[in-house]
């Protein structure tokens, strides 16, 4: 009898041990650290302004004044241990001389390339919505993601979709990735006001505008104008990435992007003035000889590298370099560094400098230099040769314990940054951004 009792006890203990072991194994197997622990919300807002004397809308002369206010919300939602859905929505409201001087005659002042018209075309709103989904493998060494986006403004609409694959190995010291994105864009082309009567079936100089406003200079105004037939612009992007931890305080990355663009790559409202055509004016405003003409294909290649060095508990050095080349003849070098200085556990300041140099596109012609016999021409100074320098300063407040709470939102970080950008042309710009990062409980 005792023997039976001993066996029963032994069997019970063995069963309990096996059951416990099995449970422990299952617990270990089922426990995975979540890729994202809680919902995170980022609010980002910026105010941008620029000015210069080389507006493309007025053929390379005139004000480049533009102001833009942008607000963006990014919500990252963990769907389970492995999957994250990110929603990114933004709205950007801008006022620009380039859009207002598409029709310089609709304001309440005399038309002038150096004065932005105050008419109805002087402002617009850009909206954007992007959704992306990422899945991380159980061992956390493989990441798949997919995205879809849509953006819209008055004369431009864009849809995009893409995906990426990332592989980590070498104890997560090495990472390689590949990504592809396609943007299918379409214009609702708007042309300079004075050219519109010269479209096929237009009434030319018999248009009421010319009957009401006397042309001075060359009164036989007869511009080259044929509206674009194809208003689509497609962009195909293929990118490769590689990153490597070089030391416990140093890591670097390389990226290589190929971009193929096809379709309407000219901007329909950008004027060109020819050297071999006599000038015509209405008031102070020189009437366009044509709109810019650019090839309908463009291939771009960009290779970039980053090297970040954790110098000490107080200093981090962030560096970046990029070389770029395209089939329009632009080659550029971009170099930047940023030196985050950790003043305390909560506050970091971010002084930075960026250098940029580009050569001119083959088709760039300054004001009144292009010839009417050429196939391609533009007076857009964004495609000219120039050097740009940018200085920046920022401050960041970080609280990893999110002690400041507002309803279900715990404030994790606030960033405030300012950048001033100057070209060796007349162009200058500045931007101030503020960002808030919240964890949601």
């Amino acid at each position, binding site marked *: 009898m005792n023997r039976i009792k001993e066996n029963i006890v032994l069997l019970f203990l063995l069963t309990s041990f096996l059951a416990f072991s099995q449970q422990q194994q299952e617990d270990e197997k089922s426990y995975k650290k979540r890729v994202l622990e809680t919902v995170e919300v980022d609010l980002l807002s910026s105010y941008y302004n620029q000015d210069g004397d080389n507006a493309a809308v007025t053929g390379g002369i005139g004000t480049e004044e533009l102001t833009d206010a*942008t607000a963006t919300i990014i919500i990252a939602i963990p769907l389970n241990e492995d999957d994250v859905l990110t929603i990114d929505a933004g709205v950007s409201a801008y006022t620009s001389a380039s859009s207002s001087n598409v029709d310089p005659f609709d304001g309440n002042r005399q038309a002038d390339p150096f004065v932005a018209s105050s008419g109805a075309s002087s402002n617009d709103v850009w909206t954007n919505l992007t959704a992306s989904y990422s899945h991380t493998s159980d061992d956390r060494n493989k990441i798949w993601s997919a995205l879809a986006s849509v953006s819209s403004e008055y004369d431009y609409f864009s849809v995009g979709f893409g995906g990426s694959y990332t592989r980590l190995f070498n104890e997560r010291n090495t990472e390689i990735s590949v990504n592809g994105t396609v943007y299918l864009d379409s214009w609702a082309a708007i042309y300079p006001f004075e050219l519109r009567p010269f479209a096929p079936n237009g009434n030319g100089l018999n248009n009421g505008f010319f009957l009401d406003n006397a042309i001075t200079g060359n009164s036989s105004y007869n511009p080259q104008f044929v509206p674009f037939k194809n208003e689509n612009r497609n962009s195909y992007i293929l990118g490769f990435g590689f990153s490597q*931890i070089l030391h416990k305080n140093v890591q670097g990355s390389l990226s290589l992007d190929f971009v193929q663009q096809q379709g309407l790559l000219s901007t329909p409202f950008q004027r060109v003035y020819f050297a071999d055509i006599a000038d015509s004016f209405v008031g102070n405003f020189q009437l366009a000889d044509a709109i810019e003409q650019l090839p309908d294909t463009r291939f771009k290649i960009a*290779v970039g590298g980053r090297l970040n060095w954790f110098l000490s508990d107080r200093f981090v050095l962030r560096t970046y370099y990029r070389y770029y080349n395209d089939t329009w003849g632009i080659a550029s070098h971009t170099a930047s560094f940023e030196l985050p200085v950790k003043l305390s556990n909560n506050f970091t300041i971010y002084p930075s400098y960026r250098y*940029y140099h580009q050569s001119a596109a083959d088709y760039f012609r300054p004001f009144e230099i292009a010839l009417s016999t050429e196939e391609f021409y533009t007076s857009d100074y964004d495609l000219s040769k120039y050097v740009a320098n940018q200085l920046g300063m920022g401050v960041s407040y970080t609280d990893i314990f999110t002690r400041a709470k507002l309803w279900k939102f715990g404030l994790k970080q606030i960033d405030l940054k300012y950048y001033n950008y100057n070209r060796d042309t007349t162009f200058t710009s500045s931007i101030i951004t503020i960002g808030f990062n919240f964890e949601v409980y």
Partner: protein
Amino acid sequence: MSKPLVLMIVLVSFFSSCVVVKEYEKVAINDPDMQLSDLPCDRNVTIAHTYREGTAGANGGKTGGGCGCN
């Protein structure tokens, strides 16, 4: 075009020869300021550069999805 590719291959080979840093040694590497992309609040600055300069790509910035023509 071949120059960037050669440069990239050389740099990849160089990077691959480095020592392995263990997870417990990655305190500095995991610092938010060490991330190998633009910091989140610099997003609109990168977009402005992409719109205003003839160059795009290889920086995590957008290369499509809006004309940026104003």
